[in-house]
């Protein structure tokens, strides 16, 4: 592996309590690239994203994470966020008790900021309509939109999308897919974890497949998409 990689994980081991979940994985993402992180439930994908975002759980007991020359490994979650990591969590985590707009404002409390409110609203007119509404009363698709918008409100160096399509009706999935495509066009480096592997692979440049906390395949997204054997073996589709 080269030293110049924009983002890299080296020999990452992560634990939840005594459970050994991520068992020594290494990978790189180049600037502007989209990486699809695939694998079955429980393979350790969400744990990997949480570890990159430096969440308190899981604990990283070995390995290193670097982003654009900065070592994230020892950072606290807010420090990682300031260094440019943005996680859009699986359950979206819209903060209850505050409005849509407040959910966006809160993303801009610390530097460096990304898009301003005006740009966000121009991009997501639906959020403008609902800005005085409590965030958690939005529909699933709108909440996902808000979660992505909230991430864009910060200056992103790497975006981590955890199951952006989960629990959404196909029509809404299409809409969110559009947003993710725009993110791709904006050139934002992204790691996407998605159960809907085909949808993720169509967007991605590279793909990694995890199993039991280890990487069992690493290569181009196109290859996985085209190889029936690979898909059957690892993804059961």
């Amino acid at each position, binding site marked *: 592996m080269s030293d110049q990689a924009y983002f890299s994980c080296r020999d990452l081991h992560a634990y939840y309590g005594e459970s050994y979940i991520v068992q020594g994985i290494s990978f790189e993402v180049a600037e502007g690239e989209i990486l699809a992180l695939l694998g079955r439930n429980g393979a350790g994908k969400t744990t990997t994203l949480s570890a990159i*975002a430096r*969440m*308190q759980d899981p604990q990283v007991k070995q390995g290193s994470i670097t982003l654009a020359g900065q070592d994230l490994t020892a950072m*606290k*979650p*807010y420090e990682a*966020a*300031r260094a440019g990591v*943005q*996680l859009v*969590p699986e359950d979206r*985590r819209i*903060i*209850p*008790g*505050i409005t849509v707009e*407040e*959910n966006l*404002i*809160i*993303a801009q*409390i*610390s*530097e460096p900021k990304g898009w301003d409110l005006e740009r966000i609203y121009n991009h997501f007119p639906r959020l403008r309509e609902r800005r005085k509404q409590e965030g958690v009363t939005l529909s699933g698709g709108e909440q996902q939109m808000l979660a992505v918008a*909230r991430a864009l409100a*910060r200056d992103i160096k790497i975006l981590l999308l955890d199951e952006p399509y989960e629990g959404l009706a196909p029509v809404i999935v299409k809409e969110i897919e559009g947003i993710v495509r725009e993110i791709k066009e904006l050139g934002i480096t992204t790691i996407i974890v998605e159960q809907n592997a085909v949808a993720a692979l169509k967007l991605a440049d590279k793909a990694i497949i995890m199993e039991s906390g280890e990487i069992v395949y690493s290569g181009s997204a196109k290859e996985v998409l085209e190889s029936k054997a690979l898909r059957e073996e690892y993804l059961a589709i």
Partner: protein
Amino acid sequence: MVNSIFLQLLTGLQLGAIYVLISLGLALIFGTLGVVNFAHGAMFMVAAYLGVVISQAEWGGWGMAIVLVPIILFGLGLLMERGLIRFFYTRPHTDQILVTFGLAIVLQEGFKWYFGANNLPFATPDWGSGIMRLHEYLPFLEGFVAYPKWRLILTAVSLITVALLFALLQFTTFGLVVRAGMRDSEMLRLLGVNISQRFAIVFALGVAIAGIAGVFGGPVTQVDPGIGMVFLVPSFLVVVIGGMGSLPGAVLASFIIGLAISFTATIPALANIIVYLIAILILLFRPRGLLGQKGVME
């Protein structure tokens, strides 16, 4: 008839005002940090002693006490959070209870050692002493109705404190962070907010409010080393009745309890246990408290 009902009402409000001042900090700290602070009563005790000392010192005076005590308590709160509490965020709730319980004992015994076990006299300032002739202002009262001035001041201070705290939480960015942090502090961290730093300030703020309670409430209650524990239990009940972590709930519950005590005062057998009875009824029929959010520490 009008007079006695009015006076009971006023007494109820005034009792509620003290409970508000003590339990507000407790509720704030619990709601934001999830910490059950058994030493909160001890903070009230410390503030009352500081109030006595500063108001009677040669260099001090009442004005100085009102300004300094909450500030000192704020500092004490910061020290306590940074030096002790923060190491307990990841430990079980029972450990938090135990360590703050230990701290309460240490503070109580430390003050007993230095100041003695007896009640210290805590005189109100000249401008706050005497009575207020209420019938001169309120025409519906019949004949002569007076009320101790200091108790009215205490009630006013309590209401102002509540108003200021709510304004702080509702209309400032700091307040937004705190409100959001009460619901999902981890998400805030993921958005780059150093929430622990702000939570330390919130903790100190809660303790500072106990400081206000001590300096204004001290002359009304007693000032002895055990006073903190005397108020701790009812203020916990206030927080439980109001709903864990709900500030409006704590305010509401304080006044309900104050009024209940005031209106049962003629039946001493009931007045002493009315707080507990209310708490038991609430918990039986509405476990999350009056204004508690669904799912929060239910």
